[in-house]
């Protein structure tokens, strides 16, 4: 966009093709690799693993404990091989929210592709300095008596929030809970709502 290229699509697409063709020519990339990545991301499963981990933690206290303290082992139980995740739990006294101020680090294996807003300057700049104001814009009001912990992903560690279970969660099964667990709740910009309250 902007002065760099009035038509962003045309400018960028031609540069992507140019780079791709040079790498193909040098054997650094193969058409097969490109096809695989395109197919994988076109069928992005979203926050599938994250939602299942959260739902299981709500119904299974032992799994919850493992998810928080032996995270890699807990994720392996779900069939996911991922060694860099730290899970931070919301409590009545603490609300957690995740950001990456220096780039846009995000736990892709558990949450899928990141939303655009997570990668834009407004979220990256403001979340560390005025998290309550940012969360209010997401419709989430955190009272002053509740501590906010902001996790700035500056290294290779990735963060996921374990949200508070919604009212009535104890009546529901893991499978029934999974669809309630949104991506946004695991970034920390939303609560999880019970079915009747889900927006």
């Amino acid at each position, binding site marked *: 966009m902007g002065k760099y290229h009035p038509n962003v699509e045309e400018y960028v697409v031609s540069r992507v093709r140019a780079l791709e063709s040079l790498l193909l020519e040098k054997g650094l990339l193969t058409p097969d690799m490109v096809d695989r990545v395109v197919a994988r991301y076109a069928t992005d499963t979203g926050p599938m693993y994250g939602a299942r981990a959260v739902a299981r933690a709500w119904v299974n206290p032992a799994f919850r404990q493992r998810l928080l303290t032996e995270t890699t082992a807990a994720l392996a139980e779900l069939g996911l091989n991922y060694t860099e995740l730290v899970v931070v739990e919301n409590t009545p006294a603490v609300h957690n929210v995740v950001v990456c101020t220096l780039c846009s680090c995000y736990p892709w294996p558990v949450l899928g592709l990141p939303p655009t807003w997570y990668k834009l300057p407004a979220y990256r700049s403001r979340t560390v*300095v005025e998290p309550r104001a940012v969360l209010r814009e997401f419709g989430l009001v955190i009272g002053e008596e509740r501590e906010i912990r902001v996790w700035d992903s500056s290294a290779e560690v990735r963060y996921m929030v374990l949200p508070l279970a919604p009212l009535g969660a104890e009546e529901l099964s893991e499978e029934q809970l999974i669809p309630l667990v949104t991506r946004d709740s695991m970034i920390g910009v939303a609560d999880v709502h019970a079915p009747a309250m889900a927006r």
Partner: protein
Amino acid sequence: MDGIHDLGGMQGFGPVLREANELTFHADWEAHVLAISEATRGKGVMNIDEFRHGIERMDAAHYLESSYYEHWLDGISRVLIEKGVISAKDLEKRAVFFEEHPDSPATAAIHGQLPEPVVFERRGPPGFRREASAPPKFKPGDAVVTRVTHPRGHTRLAQYARGRRGVVASMRGVYVFPDTNAHGLGEDPQPLYSVAFEAKELWGEDAEPNQRTFIDLWEQYLLPA
């Protein structure tokens, strides 16, 4: 470096704008950038710190105006040119070709057969974690203060977190050090700590109440407080 990428605390970007029912993938070219990224990083052509430093050196206005995947395209191209893997001239020539042939696939600019895929010898072990070579200097509960530095090269110590007092919350393990690894100066693995900072320590009296920020910081960024 003190670049535009270091956005923590910067004002002037307005509200966080969200798209309703956003598609996580917006265009086919974004997947192609991902494939290029995986190929160049997976094969050891560039490491993640070189990649990030490539992005940080974008023109500042361009950085603010372009998308995440365009950042990647720009950063990867910069590093590949610097490493001599491709030339800026070839890239420019090819880009002009595809501007003139907007419906052609990437292979259309290639004459002759594609070569056998290049097999790279990985330099060093995969991933970011390494074995400890010395005991960690800090333990959970220790009071620390971050260094005041303005390195001209790559760093993961954000400006808002420099010269600030915090408390070690936990030790994450021993990790490759970005400040050297981004510049071909070796991996220099060292302990990585999660350090907790009170909002008032980071932002002064105008900070929001009852807030802490946890930042992952390499040992070399820290001094005993």
